[in-house]
């Protein structure tokens, strides 16, 4: 077998293992090790694994992951979700569909201090679902808006998947976070527009809520100041180079911890729960990172990505067609796979292909542009059947709503996602504008 064939068989075995419910990290390590051995023999591998795991984990840039996870945990217990939702509701509630718009606004605000979609969806559901029920919103619109709104947790910086992508393609985390800002805001606006179109077609789905006068609006907005302070401190500090992203994450974790103690009444027991929950997520992510290390070393040894680049380069396909094919593959994979595992699994193959094509922009810009597109497309997987994790989280929180209703309710938001991906592909400036401005 040539090494190209070994790599292809490795990918085939990986797919079989994944289909048989082998955890993603375990499947990647198994195939990576198997491929490594079949190319170089046992001795180099045994030598490599003496320290490979240590060097993978002992990385300053990666320390950001447990810190952001801690920050998300504390943020969920800081009692900020109701302040965010109420404030958005005083501005939007009197419109038709306004309470659902407010839920999305609350998700966007929460996403600004939380890097995880599931945590954003679950936390906002607790405060928004009872209100949506009170104003007799249809089950489909109520749960669909929240499931889609949850994905803003990852799009709006800080974002854990974006950190993973930056490390996988060796991009600058700071500029990646800058690039995500406008697409993130665009996503929130797109969802709000979607709600307003939805209720125009189904006026019964989203009745009008309460109107609030200006005094109440200002007071409700004032209640959200801890979110504003933390976001300005962490993301502002990272954007303007006051501190490194890891330092920003540490400041954010400590800041949300203090607010959770002060406003959320966090106890020692609650603190330990936060740390343990963050630890389980950290272990899961780092084990996949280790799997990705073995898998990509194997792929690099096989020189398969380079061969693939040559094949695609020689095929005469236009760069845009290749990019659209990658987007389609991501959409398909996203239906069954976790977004983070997907990024780590595919980037060692897809990034060299994209980097080898001429999109008329420098490599650093390409990393940002492709990264944001990939991020959005893999996040769409969180709300598509059959395995949309956000849909499951919201659906289990909404008693009496059938899963099918939630999946139906999420479809208009899915359409808005696809429109946005199209816009970002057609106009790279949307993504690159802020990083260029701040350079």
């Amino acid at each position, binding site marked *: 077998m040539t090494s190209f064939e070994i790599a292809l068989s490795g990918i085939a075995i990986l797919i079989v293992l994944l289909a048989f419910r082998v*955890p993603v990290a375990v499947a990647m390590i198994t195939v990576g090790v198997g491929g490594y051995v079949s190319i170089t023999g046992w001795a180099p591998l045994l030598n490599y694994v003496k320290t490979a795991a240590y060097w993978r984990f002992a990385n300053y840039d990666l320390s950001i992951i447990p810190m952001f996870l801690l920050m998300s945990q504390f943020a969920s217990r800081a009692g900020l979700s109701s302040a965010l939702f109420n404030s958005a509701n005083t501005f939007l509630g009197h419109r038709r569909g306004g309470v659902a718009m407010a839920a999305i606004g609350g998700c966007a605000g929460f996403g600004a201090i939380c890097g995880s979609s599931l945590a954003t969806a679950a936390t906002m559901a607790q405060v928004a679902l009872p209100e949506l029920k009170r104003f007799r919103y249809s089950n489909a619109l109520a749960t669909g808006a929240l499931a889609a709104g949850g994905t803003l947790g990852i799009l709006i910086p800080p974002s854990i998947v974006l950190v993973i992508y930056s490390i996988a393609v060796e991009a600058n985390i700071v500029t990646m976070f800058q690039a995500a800002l406008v697409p993130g805001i665009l996503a929130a606006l797109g969802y709000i527009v979607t709600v307003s179109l939805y209720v125009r077609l189904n006026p019964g789905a989203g009745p009008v809520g309460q109107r609030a006068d200006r005094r109440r609006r200002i007071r409700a907005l004032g209640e959200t100041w801890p979110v504003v302070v933390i976001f300005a401190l962490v993301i502002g500090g990272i954007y303007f180079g006051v501190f490194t992203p890891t330092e920003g994450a540490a400041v954010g974790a400590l800041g949300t911890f203090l607010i959770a103690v002060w406003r959320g009444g966090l106890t020692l027991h609650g603190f330990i729960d936060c740390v*343990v929950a963050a630890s*389980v997520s950290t272990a899961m992510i780092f084990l996949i990172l280790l799997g990705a290390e073995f898998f990509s070393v194997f792929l690099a040894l096989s020189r398969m990505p380079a061969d693939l680049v040559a094949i695609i380069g020689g095929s005469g396909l236009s760069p845009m067609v290749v990019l659209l094919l990658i987007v389609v593959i991501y959409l398909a994979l996203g239906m069954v796979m976790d977004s983070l595992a997907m990024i780590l699994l595919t980037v060692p193959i897809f990034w060299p292909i994209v980097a080898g094509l001429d999109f008329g922009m420098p490599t650093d810009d390409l990393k940002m542009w492709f990264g944001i597109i990939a991020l959005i497309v893999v996040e769409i997987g969180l709300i598509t059947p059959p395995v949309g994790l956000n849909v499951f989280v919201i659906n289990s929180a909404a008693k009496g709503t059938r899963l099918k209703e939630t999946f139906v309710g999420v479809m208009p938001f899915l359409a808005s996602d696809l429109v946005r991906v199209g816009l970002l592909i057609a106009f790279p400036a949307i993504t690159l504008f802020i990083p260029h401005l701040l350079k």
Partner: protein
Amino acid sequence: MSDTGADIPRPTDPVGRVLFTLAYLLVLVGGAIMSAVTVMTVVSVLGRWLFLSPVYGDFELAAVGTAVSVFLFLPYCHLQRGNVVVDLFLSRAPPRANALLDAISGVLLGVIGGVLAWRMYLGGADMLRYGEVTHIVGFPIWYAFPFAVASGALLAACCLYTSVVDLRKVVS
């Protein structure tokens, strides 16, 4: 992702209880190290702003601390079934079939944990013998390896345990 905090029930048999307690202790130690790294990083930022003196070698200490705590987190993550799987074809398969597949995955991860423990024991010994230290503060790197080896070994034991539990479900 497992950050929704859905706990699985704790094991009630003696072996399971011992393994669970050990894994939980490691998580607490790792969590304490991670929290300390976070506080140190903030202190370093404040020190740099206020007194123009960050914590000496903060980047290196954060990296070593992260590595040690991640190793310590691994066994508990497995016991919580925290590792993500792709749920496509088999989500509606009979529970016995899934239990068998989980048992096989457990064996694979157990072998990975065992081999890592064995090789990292030798890797740590090399680090000690050659006196490898971090560049700036000269922190001896081998200090991290006993934690890593212990975690790998406990991970292997936990995997063995969960595989046996899963196999019992298959035959019962």
